[in-house]
């Protein structure tokens, strides 16, 4: 289980967020500028909170009071960025393999093949990221994060840079991932329809604070009309 309780001053926005995320997909849902991306960056270790603590399955990743701040490369948290951020100088295969190589784990062909099949990217392995469509790029980014063997997967608006057709292409993979992989996920989105498809728990953020947390009932039909 992920336990987040952080505070940070971000320009004019005073961010103070507290929530727990259990198994399944926890959606951080709210309008742009609510501080969603900052929260996942803090979980990943890319942004340092001013105060508070972050722990996962009892392991403390950050604790301002105790001076604990595990660097990102030792947190073992997969991160799928909005823009994919595939390494342009590496092939798709090398991108997928990067996390495993950096952690020095042996190559597990079965695991590699399983995730490549899950995301349907086997025909892309020898290509460069530049030669992929937006949807293919995001599938590879998801695969790269999964293949590092994460204990938690962060997805920051993974569909935001895609057009409607590509969004429809990717969502089923993410749903399959939720049902098959068994890795807890934190899914950032401002799109209600997307959250409804994928999330099991919803944390609503507004202006840097949690305004509600609970089940899918928190997504009102008004959200879907208003935000989509």
């Amino acid at each position, binding site marked *: 289980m992920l336990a987040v309780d952080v505070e940070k001053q971000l320009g004019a926005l005073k961010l103070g967020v507290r929530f727990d995320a259990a198994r399944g997909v926890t959606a951080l849902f709210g309008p742009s500028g609510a501080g969603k991306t900052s929260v996942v960056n803090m979980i990943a*270790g890319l942004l340092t909170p001013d105060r508070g603590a972050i722990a996962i399955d009892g392991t403390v990743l950050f604790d301002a009071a105790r001076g604990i701040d595990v*660097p*990102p490369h*030792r947190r073992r948290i997969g991160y799928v*960025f909005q823009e994919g*951020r595939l*390494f342009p100088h590496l092939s798709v295969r090398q991108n997928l393999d*990067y996390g495993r190589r*950096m952690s020095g784990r042996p190559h597990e062909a079965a695991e590699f093949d399983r995730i490549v099949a899950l995301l349907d990217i086997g025909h892309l392995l020898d290509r460069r990221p530049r030669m992929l469509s937006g949807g293919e790029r995001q599938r590879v980014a998801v695969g790269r994060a999964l293949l590092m063997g994460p204990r938690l997967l962060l997805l920051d608006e993974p569909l935001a840079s895609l057009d409607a057709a590509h969004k429809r292409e990717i969502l089923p993979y993410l749903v399959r991932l939720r049902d098959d992989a068994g890795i807890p996920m934190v899914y950032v989105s401002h799109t209600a329809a997307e959250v409804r498809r994928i999330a099991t728990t919803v944390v609503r953020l507004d202006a840097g604070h949690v305004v509600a947390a609970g089940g899918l009932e928190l997504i009102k039909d008004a959200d879907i009309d208003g935000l989509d």
Partner: protein
Amino acid sequence: MLDLTPAEWTAVALSLRIAVVATACALPFGIAIGWLLARTNFWGKSVLDGIVFLPLVMPPVVTGYLLLIWFGRKAPIGAFLDSHFGIVFSFRWTGAALACGIMGFPLMVRPIRLALEAIDRKLEDAAATLGANRPWVFLTVTLPLALPGIIAGVVLCFARALGEFGATITFVSNIPGETQTISSLIYTLTQVPGGDAAAGRLVLIAIVLAFAALFASEWLARRASVRFHGE
């Protein structure tokens, strides 16, 4: 056409050796200084920036003279290096390499710095979340992405080192077989009667070498770009 005398061949080989050694030794410093200038902020950064670029704007003779009074055998740094490491620069080809390296250094640092500044830092963050510590991020993401700039810096420094004249001749003189490069031999030949033909041959070689360096850099840069951005 290339009917060179042994003395002329010696000068050509020596020039190449000096330029290669100067460039190779300058490269690690060039990457380190380029990184410092591109990525860090510290007190005295603009001073460092100025010192690095000084050889580009100062008369080469001044650079050579400063080397002479610092790196000469009896000079403070020169004497220290001689007694502790057995490294002697004055009137040796190594001194020529030092002078050429320093003269080429600003031309090397600039493209490396620009390349490092142009790299999307978010890719380095992504590498960190995938388990790469900072040295590995640098080796597997930063350096490969800066490669076109590094190639450009290497070629510019090499070309400058190959043609360096003023600082070299001031620091290590013009000794055949030791410090007499293509440039200083051409200079010598133009000072003696009947040296025009030989000088002409060497001028031709200098032009060919410069072109070869340019073509090599174009080719390498294109290969690097194909690797990064697809066909």
